[in-house]
């Protein structure tokens, strides 16, 4: 098969900088191949996408050495317009990719620029929207869509142009699990139907393991590991990449004789098949022991939501009911995940806890105070809220000033402010960063500054919206460990996320929302045990949980981690 992408000794430096971001990349990609690119933040993945698409150096300048050849065309020797005809690219941030005032207009923009006939534009737009599950959205205003929906509009825009090569830079970071699955299915279908070559940067190893023919792991501007998914995940070690659950289980089981003759599983289906074979071969009779769910001690609720309704844009054309007749109690010390489909009302609900939104109908009572009657600035002392993007709040040039901002608004004394800032810095692990400029910190550290600035107000409840979006696995774990630590100090912590692996690992209680209502509410194990109901909320439990459900003849309880699955299997005789 012919190579449609050939990269030889690619070195790249951004304009105005002397640091090499790509340090000698060599890569050949065959027609119709799906290549996954992984690696920690700052590894050069996005820069590789820009160089591949020809945007570097055509659009952003900079110094490029080596060669990037796309379908026999050397990108540096041709006009960008010629290169762009062969390539579609989707970026991480959906907000900046929208230009139309209607979804169909936005998806059609590239096709209009390609000067295609009207009829063909209409057909392609329709088909692209169908592929990303946005049928019926043609006339919607793109900016009023949820983050995930916006991202799918961006993907549809690229798909509509039928490019020879499709480059996706973290295209699903804001999508719900089933939304992610559908986008990846669409990507695979695109390859099968049109033989499109696809390069996708992604932190989601489960999905990449399922669809990628080959995975590259980058670190500090170089490709440090390359090969088939099975091979890469078995050797990835400490490169800051999350290993899929079933591969982790495989790693654990390969220490035992029964497993060594089998390949590493890559998907839940693989793992289920291999495990069933082993279990039947060994004639295991028993089932795993039941895994208990610790009782959550509950006193008086700190937040009570009663018959809550919330309507956006009341009395306007765009009126949308976001919450419907919602009832909920949140207790002191809860460590709770709020999950659900994009647009299910998670953020809308969370913004009611600190009074940023006031109920259209019903009430939200926080520590006995009706949020309708208390301003958000007063509720901020009880409920702290960290936004998804720390850049929406950072405005000081010193970390110390940024964290002192909240306490100053509470009119505390200078000594109290100093003590609180110092304590918060200590808590988030940024001691010594007092005089650093937050604008120059990495995303993970900026997020911690944002958390510290809220913690310094001594709230009893902390809400964190998407704490891991846009972060690599290592940063995500670091942030969630911080969340856990904060919860251990007695604070109630509510986090909103689409990452079910983090939910399984950290949350004690899970609330699943769908269409503005609470669909499920309970301990994590019990919620993830209800796979059918979760599907209604476009939620897919972690792979290891799905595996335990597929093998429910052997697993008595829903499993939440590879370690739990391994322990369970060890209890099956004669393996034990």
């Amino acid at each position, binding site marked *: 098969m012919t190579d449609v992408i050939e990269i030889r000794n690619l070195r790249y430096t951004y304009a105005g900088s002397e640091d090499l971001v790509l340090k000698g990349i060599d890569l050949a990609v065959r027609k119709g191949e799906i290549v996954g690119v992984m690696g920690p933040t700052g590894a050069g993945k996005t820069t590789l996408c820009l160089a591949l*698409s020809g*945007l570097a150096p*055509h659009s*952003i300048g900079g110094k490029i050495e080596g060669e990037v050849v796309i379908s026999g065309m050397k990108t540096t020797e041709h006009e*960008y*317009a010629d290169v*762009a*005809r062969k*390539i*579609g690219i989707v*970026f991480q*941030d959906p907000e*900046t*990719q929208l*230009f*139309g*005032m*209607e979804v169909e*207009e936005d998806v059609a*923009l*590239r096709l209009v*620029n*390609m*000067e295609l006939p*009207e009829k063909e534009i209409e057909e392609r737009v329709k088909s692209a929207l169908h592929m990303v599950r946005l049928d019926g959205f043609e006339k919607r*205003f793109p*900016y*009023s869509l949820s983050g995930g929906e916006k991202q799918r509009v961006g993907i549809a*825009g690229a798909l509509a142009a039928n490019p020879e090569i499709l480059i996706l830079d973290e295209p699903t970071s804001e999508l719900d699990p089933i939304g992610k699955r559908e986008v990846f299915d669409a990507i695979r279908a695109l390859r099968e139907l049109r033989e499109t070559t696809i390069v996708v940067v992604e932190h989601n190893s489960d999905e990449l393991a399922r669809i990628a023919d080959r995975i590259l792991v980058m670190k500090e501007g170089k490709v440090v590991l390359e090969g088939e998914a099975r091979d890469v995940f078995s050797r990835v070690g400490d490169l800051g990449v999350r290993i899929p659950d079933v591969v982790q289980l495989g790693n654990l089981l390969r220490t035992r004789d029964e497993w060594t003759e089998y390949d590493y599983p890559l998907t839940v289906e693989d793992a289920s098949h291999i495990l069933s074979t082993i279990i039947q071969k060994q004639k295991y009779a028993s089932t795993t022991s039941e895994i208990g769910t610790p009782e959550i001690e509950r006193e008086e609720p700190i937040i009570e939501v009663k018959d809550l309704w919330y309507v*956006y*844009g009341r*009395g*306007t*054309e*765009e009126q*949308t009911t*976001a919450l419907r007749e919602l009832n909920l109690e949140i207790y002191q010390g809860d460590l709770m995940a709020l999950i659900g489909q994009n647009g299910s009302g998670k953020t809308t609900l969370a913004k009611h806890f*600190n009074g*940023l939104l006031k109920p259209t109908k019903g009430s939200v009572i926080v520590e006995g105070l009706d949020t309708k009657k208390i*301003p*958000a*600035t*007063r509720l*901020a*002392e009880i409920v*702290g*809220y960290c*936004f998804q*993007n720390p*850049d*929406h*709040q*950072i*405005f000081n040039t010193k970390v110390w000033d940024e964290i002192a*901002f*909240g306490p100053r*608004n509470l009119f505390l004394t200078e000594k109290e402010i100093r003590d609180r800032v110092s304590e918060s810095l200590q808590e988030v692990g940024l001691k010594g960063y007092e005089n650093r400029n937050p604008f120059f910190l990495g995303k993970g550290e900026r997020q911690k500054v944002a958390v510290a*600035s*809220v913690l310094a*107000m001594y709230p009893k409840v902390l809400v964190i919206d998407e704490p891991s979006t846009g972060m690599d696995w290592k940063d995500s774990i670091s942030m969630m460990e911080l969340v856990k630590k904060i919860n251990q100090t007695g604070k109630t912590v509510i986090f909103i996320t689409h990452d079910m692996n983090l939910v399984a690992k950290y949350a004690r209680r899970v609330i699943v929302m769908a269409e503005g209502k609470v669909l499920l509410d309970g301990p994590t194990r019990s919620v993830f045990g209800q796979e059918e109901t979760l599907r209604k909320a476009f939620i897919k439990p972690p792979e290891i949980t799905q595996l335990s459900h597929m093998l429910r003849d052997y697993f008595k309880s829903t499993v939440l981690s590879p370690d739990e699955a391994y322990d369970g299997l060890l209890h099956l005789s004669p393996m034990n």
Partner: protein
Amino acid sequence: MSVYRLYVDKGTFIHRLHPIVKIVWLFTIVVLAWTFNRWEYAFVIFLWALLYAILSRVPLKKIFGTAFLFVIWTAILSIILWPAFLRGGNVVFEWNVFRFTDIGLSVGIAYGFRIGACMVAALGWLMTTSQRELIEGLADVRVPYQFSFGIMLALRYAPLLLGEIGRVREAQKSRAFNWNRGSVKRRIQAFAENTRVLVVPVFNRMLSSVNQIALCLDSKGCDFSKPPKRRKLRFNRFDKGFLAVTFCVTAFFLALRIMGYGWITMLA
């Protein structure tokens, strides 16, 4: 979910008009609005502009929400300021150094309706013309593609900017920041700080967005030096009929003006 959108797809015959017809209509409204300075005539032109919005079934609330304050403020300012620059007319009443004359009142109110007519017409036009038609319409009247694309980008930036401002305000409010705390004097003193709290994060976000937007535009094949081939839009009977009515109404009002109606001569 604060969003800002102008185009409202109602599928009326006004929406389906050829973009050039809508531009011509808008131009005639602007001309007529500045043809009369008697409030009664200006009011009729205002109603003529409003009729377009009513026929296109766009939400009038949205139009008045934007235009109403401008109309009122322009009228008040004009009523107060005209006597300072003009002589003539009978004094209706006096207040301190201000003298309010009948001419001043008439011209002031007329100014309100003149500005109002232009605003209602412009908003009505934007609410009934999609982005693509806007660019095509402007191209038809020989406006350079770079300029019309610039307008589209400005329209595209409005929701992004407003969305960012909304999010930053909420984020700072979550840290107990209150823009309206204290007396007016205290708020004026804290103006610089209040502005910094909002402007720095918004500016930071917008700056990082600009680079990304430029990349996205390039990746979508937007070439500003060469407009894409446009659809061939044909004039249909509705277009012709609407143009005919527009020209007749315009000619009628211009004739009135030529005959000396609708204008108060003022002495500077």
